[in-house]
């Protein structure tokens, strides 16, 4: 991944300021050719801003952006082989959707009839073939978003920027589009820079993920890295649900750390470099790594009382009140209903954790 020849987009120390407000603080990242790269981060962290700088709509206040090795500061957007699916769609209101999709092709010199033919195919792809004569205002939100997607894909750019392109789609269509996008990306070799706030989507689709917060890069890595080995508390907390426990490290021995949490409870987990004896740090335990039982099962068992069960379809989320300790969230797969017990609110039980499940966090 460090082969500079293959870098599609290279962002070096990019800073963006709006007046006094700094939206991006010295962001550096390299996006590989043919990579599916995702920007993930809370609302307002600067994802759109970064995309707009790459597309050429916002000036870089400091730093530089390179596209296939060339500084693109002075390249206007229409000269950048980069297309965007805009967060607010920005469909041309006076054109019907076929012409919207054909636009980019025509601009690249495709003849009008060819462009329309190709556009028709793209519309079929996003399942809007029968609407091609409608104006954007006659479409629903999700339909508009699909048109925006088709429009950006049609001219087959080298880099495609997607700003929450699936956010208005229902789960089923979204899954289908995810597959389709991934498939397209592999087939065409287009580099995708994808903004999403859906962690599952990010984890499923991406080659690499950049987690941002308040204009700063928090962690950059493969999906499993990010999910299983978060660098800091922000990443652990932001990606997926987790139990974040304040602990003090009481003992470290042969790679194991013994941690103390409130109420006399103790947990053991893998030690982490840089976290020494006596540190007060946070431990993250994913809810799906916990399970419940009548009696303690593993060595790492904590006694608690059920507060609430929430049905979420595939799973059931249980909120457990640890005596004198923090609340725990436990996620039980719906499949376990048959052979594992679901406890009624109020009942007492034990929360069990495998040894490797807890992770200590720097910061």
């Amino acid at each position, binding site marked *: 991944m460090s082969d500079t020849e293959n870098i599609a987009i290279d962002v070096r120390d990019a800073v963006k300021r709006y007046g006094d407000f700094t939206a991006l603080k010295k962001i550096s990242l390299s996006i590989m050719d043919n990579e599916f790269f995702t920007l993930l981060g809370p609302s307002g962290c600067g994802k759109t801003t970064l995309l707009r700088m790459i597309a050429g*709509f916002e000036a870089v206040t400091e730093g530089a952006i390179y596209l296939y090795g060339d500084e693109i500061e002075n390249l206007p957007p229409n000269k950048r082989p980069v297309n965007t699916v*805009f967060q607010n769609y*920005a*469909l*041309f209101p006076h054109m019907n959707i*076929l012409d919207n999709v054909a*636009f*980019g092709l025509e*601009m690249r010199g495709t003849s009008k009839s060819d462009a329309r033919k190709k556009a028709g195919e793209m519309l079929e792809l996003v399942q809007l073939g029968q609407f091609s004569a409608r104006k954007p205002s006659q479409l629903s939100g999700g339909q508009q978003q699909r048109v925006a997607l088709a429009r*950006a894909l049609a001219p087959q750019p080298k880099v495609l920027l997607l700003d929450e392109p699936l956010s208005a789609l229902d789960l089923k269509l979204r899954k289908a589009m995810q597959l389709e996008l991934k498939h397209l990306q592999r087939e065409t070799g287009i580099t995708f820079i994808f903004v999403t706030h859906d962690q599952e989507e990010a984890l499923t689709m991406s080659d690499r993920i950049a987690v941002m917060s308040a204009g700063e890069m928090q962690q950059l890595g493969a999906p499993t890295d990010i999910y299983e080995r978060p660098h800091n508390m922000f990443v652990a907390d932001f990606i997926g649900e987790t139990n974040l426990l304040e602990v003090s490290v009481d003992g470290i021995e042969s790679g194991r750390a013994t941690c103390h949490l409130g109420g006399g409870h103790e947990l053991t987990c893998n030690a982490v470099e840089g976290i020494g004896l006596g540190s007060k740090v946070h431990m993250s335990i994913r809810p799906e790594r916990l399970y419940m039982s009548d009696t303690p099962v593993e060595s790492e068992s904590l006694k608690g009382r059920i507060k609430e069960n929430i049905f979420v379809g595939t799973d059931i989320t249980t909120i457990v009140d640890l005596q004198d300790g923090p609340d725990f969230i436990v996620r039980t797969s719906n499949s376990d209903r048959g052979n594992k017990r679901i406890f009624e609110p109020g009942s007492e039980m034990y929360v069990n954790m495998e040894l490797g499940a807890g992770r200590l966090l720097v910061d």
Partner: protein
Amino acid sequence: MAAGAASGGSATTDTYKEARTWLLLPAWVTLSILVLAPVIMMLIYSFLTKEFRGGVIWEFSLAAYDQFFFDRGLFGDDPPKIEWTYVTIFWRSIWQAGAATLLSLVIGFPTAYFIATRSENMRPVWVFLITIPYWVNLLIRTVSMKFLLRDQGPLNDFLMSIGLIDSPLHIVNTNFAVQLGLFYSYLPFMVLPIYAAVERYNFALSEAAADLYASKWTTLRRVLLPAIKPGVFAGCILVFVPSMGSFLAPDLLGGAKNFMIGSLIEEQFKGNAGNWPFGAAASMILLSMVLIILMFSARQQAKADKAGG
């Protein structure tokens, strides 16, 4: 026609449907009494018999229209032929007004656009800068303009002093001078409506176009212009229509050698001819022609809208 003015990518809505009658009533009443009634009177006049030296005799007559459409020779007793005189005058007026409108558009559009993209604080200042000259009487402006453009005027002096030309450009008393004069008379009527429309334009659309490889000029043509079409349409009407009937610029800057419709009609009421029915008939014909032009361009727009730009 209404459809034409209403087109441009933005649908009309029915938010104030119930109040519609009340909203339109003041305009209906004011214009019916103060404009429509007089115009209907003129329509009636055009079918009456002319009184020598101005005025009408209340007797039905088609003489005015006959005079307009049929050439019966110098003495009025040749067999009727198609009359080209007035057609020529009308055509000249359309041509001059069209050229002036085009000139206004070419200068006025960039100006309006430039103003609309200034900071919110500066926009009103620019708008005023454009309208201030119009606080000074049109006649004064036109006369000063003529002074500027004269063979020995400052413009020629300047151009000669920088060596761009050797002998003065003859501008005064040409068609171009008339177009310039009309342009100067009505420029803000082009600038302001376009400004008001661009100000509301969603620049994300331009970004999307640029993102899809459209050059700036293509973006302008294919995305910006269609989106602000109502403003451009309004501007063109406001320049073209008054230009058609104007006579100050043609008289002063064009030398009054050839009638424009405005002068022709004026002559019927204020000049020696004193033929009111004919003046009324010519006005009605002008009126219907403008209506036809408007309707035609509206139809074209509607078609283009349907076809999807």
